[in-house]
């Protein structure tokens, strides 16, 4: 299974969280906000500035730096 970074996905793409390679507190925060292993995401916005992803029907804005550290697999 090949993983890629969330920032490379396009608007409308869906994926599953595989691994987060950010610092430990940021990683934990993301996990606790629902970006845990296997969580399904939908990319709602990816142009410039933070990305917006849909997660469980809700929207979360994620800085690009952080999104780059989130590895996802195709859902």
């Amino acid at each position, binding site marked *: 299974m090949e993983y890629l970074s969330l920032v490379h996905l396009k608007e409308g793409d869906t994926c599953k969280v595989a691994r987060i390679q950010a610092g430990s507190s940021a990683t934990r925060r993301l996990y*606790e*906000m629902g970006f*845990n292993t296997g*969580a399904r995401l939908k990319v709602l916005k990816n142009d410039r500035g933070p990305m917006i992803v849909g997660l469980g*029907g809700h*929207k979360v804005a994620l*800085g690009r730096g952080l999104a780059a550290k989130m590895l996802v697999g195709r859902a």
Partner: protein
Amino acid sequence: MAKTIALVGNPNSGKTTVFNALTGANQHVGNWPGVTVERKEGQTHHNNQTYRVVDLPGTYSLGAFSEDEVVAREFILTGNPDVVINVVDATNIERNLYLTTQLLEMGTKVVIALNMVDEAEAREIHVDEKALAQALGVPVVRTVASRRKGLDQLMAAAAATIHAPMNGHVELSYGKAIDAKVARLRAFLAKGDFPYPQGWLAVKLLEGDEYVRQVVSESPALFELKTFRQFWDETVIHAGDLQLDIVDGRYKFVGEVTKHAVRRPEVEVETFTDKLDRVLTHRYWGMPIFAGIMLIVFQLTFAIGQDFLGEWMVVGMDYVGEGLDRLLVTLNAPGWLLDFASNGVVAGVGAVVEFVPLIVILYMLMGILEDSGYMARAAYVMDNTMRAVGLQGKTFISMIVGFGCNVPGVMATRTLENRKDRMIAILINPFMSCGAKIPIYLVFIAAFFPTHGGIVLFSAYALGILVAFLVAKVFSKTLFKGEVSHFIMELPPYRTPTLTNVLRNMWDNVSGFLARAGTTIFAVVSLLWVLAVLPTGAEPYGPASILGSIGQFIAPIFTPAGFGNWQAAVGLFSGIAAKEAVVATLGMVYAGVEEGAALVTAIQGAFTPLSAVSFMVMTLLYTPCAATLGTIRKETGSGKWALFSAVYAFAIGWLLAVAVFQIGSLMGFA
């Protein structure tokens, strides 16, 4: 003794709405001891019983990630609430139940308020609350707090739970390996004497929770056991590695629970929020729309708060002043008391009170933006710009609040989790031109730029923001180095703001302002009055008074800026106490009046258009008022930062005022 109910829930779960709906006007806002987290408490009644309701900070988790989380979990564990009402957003149930799992780990009595079920239904998300209650082992009540639906049933369930024995405990599984460690630790911990449940301690230790580790490591009895020491060194010290597995374990439990209890549509229903977001967070339109919204907010604030309601307050204060005068005359009060009442109290406090409508309107409009969900979009839209100066989007919200008053502006930085962000945000907030400075600009505009008021006012705000950005950039490269903080922010669905929330939020802020007007500012104007009339024999507010001497002493440093007269110096001096006092002081020292045409004429005589501009620049940027400095000290936990703020802001204000005057002179302006 009234039973205690604690309210727990995610940010944006509608917890505050539930709290407001339950307690109404019976609320008290304070601070948790030792930390800068707001504490809200109120009372509610059900079946002729009174209950105390404590609103805990909104959190995603009950770890040790932020002060909010520690405050919330400490209260649940040691504050002995009789029951915890967990407000769960039905539209986002999985993540909300993550917090619930932690309450279950704590072994607390929980009642779930399944909130916003109407929105969930509209999005075709169906929750079977009976199945949910069965799986979690706690009562679940459907509510729509914004329309006060289900609150009676919620209180009935809470009351019943208080008196019921602890219901069947749900055991979470984190996977075989971790479960075995938990069991082992529990057995050890049973030998210690801790004020916390053992199961919870065990899980927290394995999550690498520093706070819990500290608590347990202070137990000598346990560490006498060789087996425990060995287990501690081998497992607990490195336990941080397990934390993500434990989070996954909790989510797996949530997944099991919701599998049968929640039904979601195959294709998500496109909501009003999605449509609106396409415009409001648009890559090109987002920013101009945000600027437009802010412009409307300020226009409305001034149109309603100042021009309309403010005028009425002026009339009202005049009336009060005259009444007080007449009363004192009939009482045969001595002359100095008359003078103190009219020139000290009515002039000083009056200058502040006249200003209340303005902040009332500003806070109501900001409350509407906040409650509607737009504020999160503002942070999103601003993130790019803020990142260029080493900050992140959320910081801008505290800056906007600072336009009203820097005290709540500084307090609004509490939402920033990263210390670097927070420190810079606190230190630049005073450059946001607060409402109290507006009357100062208005006097100078009336004197010199009567036809260009809008431009001048706008320039003041723009300069403030510009200086804040530059200073932030410098600070992030020097004083507060370190990684750029990450931006993680939930964008809640747009909702119609509820009147109670907006009014409540406004009142919390305005009452704080009034309290300051009644205490600090009253003390300050009294002191200024004393300084102005002493020593006896000197002309009050004249150059020979103590105030005049202070002014003459500091005036020379302002000569390069073009306003090196003692009256201007006295005005700035009083502004360190409170910016509201500047105009009243200038009025008294220049014209012997508080405000009005005579002051404008006197200002025209004492300043030139150029020195007026440099004076306004100084006023905009120099040392924050005493109340703001006090807040900076409290929020940074150190008087050093307050002192730093006072000194560096003065230096920046002085430098720019001098630059304006000198360069302006060279260019031939006068």
